[in-house]
């Protein structure tokens, strides 16, 4: 064994993290080795606090330290407008725009018929209950424009349509900062179909 047991242990844990290979895990472990005890305490406490304090919001499934989350709890948000997203990362991305005033519903996954991920495996039932029990006027489909995302939004739209609620989805268009000539034909086609008035 080249490394001592405790060093090996830490390298092993780092390697489980996304995008971290053997080399990077070693670098991180050696970094931890040279920080002060105080710093090491802080790091480990941060991890433990995260795991003990953070839970899922009982209304929207967003990550939160208080239940309901700050968005669901906020009276100045429009609670009749729900944006459906796949995971908390998507919620954060939309929230960063600072322009959305409605609330969210986090599905915690997408439907994937090829992988046997069905309606009961993600939080669709919770969305339906929420919509039926509250005065919801519009549901925005904020799922990704890929096969799983499309399947998910088509499935939810089908469940919602008898309820007479307005169902919309995010426009698909040409990414800002790119040249039109490099956009692929499907993106351009969608952008043409979803064109807006000047």
């Amino acid at each position, binding site marked *: 064994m080249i490394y001592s047991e405790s060093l090996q242990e830490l390298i092993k844990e780092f390697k489980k993290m996304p995008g971290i290979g053997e080399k990077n895990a070693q670098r991180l472990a050696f970094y931890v080795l040279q920080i002060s005890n105080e710093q090491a305490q802080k790091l480990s406490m941060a991890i433990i606090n995260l795991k003990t304090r953070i839970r899922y919001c009982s209304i929207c499934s967003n990550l939160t330290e208080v239940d309901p989350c700050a968005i669901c709890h906020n009276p100045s948000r429009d609670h009749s407008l729900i944006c459906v997203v796949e995971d908390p990362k998507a919620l954060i991305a939309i929230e960063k725009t600072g322009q959305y005033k409605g609330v969210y519903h986090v599905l915690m996954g997408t439907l994937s*018929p*090829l992988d046997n991920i069905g309606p009961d495996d993600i939080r669709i039932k919770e969305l339906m209950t929420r919509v039926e029990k509250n005065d919801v006027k519009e549901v925005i489909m904020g799922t990704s424009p890929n096969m799983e995302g*499309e*399947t998910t939004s088509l*499935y939810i739209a089908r469940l919602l349509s008898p309820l007479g609620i307005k169902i919309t989805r995010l426009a698909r268009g040409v990414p800002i900062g790119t040249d039109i000539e*490099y956009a*692929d034909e499907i993106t351009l086609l969608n952008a043409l179909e979803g064109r807006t008035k000047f």
Partner: protein
Amino acid sequence: MPLQETQALVLRTDNLGEADKIVTLFSPQTGKIKGVANGARRPKSRFGSSLEVLSYIRVVYFAQPKGLHRLNQTDLVDYFPKIRVELPKLAAALYLVDLVNSLTEQEDSNPDLFNLLLYNLKIINQGNFEPVLLRIFEIRALTVLGFAPQFEKCTICKKRLDFLQKNVYNILCGGILCLECAKDKGGISLSCGSINFLKQAVKIDLDKIGRLKLSANQAQEVKQLLHQHILYNIKQEINSYRFLEKL
């Protein structure tokens, strides 16, 4: 590392690492192949939206000896956009690609199966989707792969089957039995109409399959028989079939 070029249908994609995809393709020349598309999940990837499941593409790849090739360039031929906006069509099309993926081995060329799949995706994209199309696809796919059940003779006693009376499909025997042999074995009972439909569905020209019809009762029998027979051959559930059944 020879450079290959082929047309292909995308059967499935799996994420690899942070930004790559492993893509399972079905090509008329090489059959099912798998390839890595580096950076395919990045927004400005050179693969664009061509590597989505159900896309019909032209692909250039570096063939690797171990069977996981490296995709170099792709062009979209057809995206079947109308399949992707209607749930019954999307679920049906996903079942077709899933079935082809489940029934085939890698690098086993079968141009007939490719043409069958492509033709059916085009039909689903263009017209109204009818479940009878799935049954025709199933029996034809089983036939071109050499897995189809025999309709001429009883699987056990080899006696010619009498099509004026009901016969029985028995999963343990993997085939159709005469009433005598089925007595103590049981199974799915098949009307003459259902068996005739299956024989027709195999023989008829592809562009005439729209003419084949099934009564509600026959549809149920045929669906059960083919599903049992597929499970008998591949020995596992087909994920997308469950989704289709839940709609």
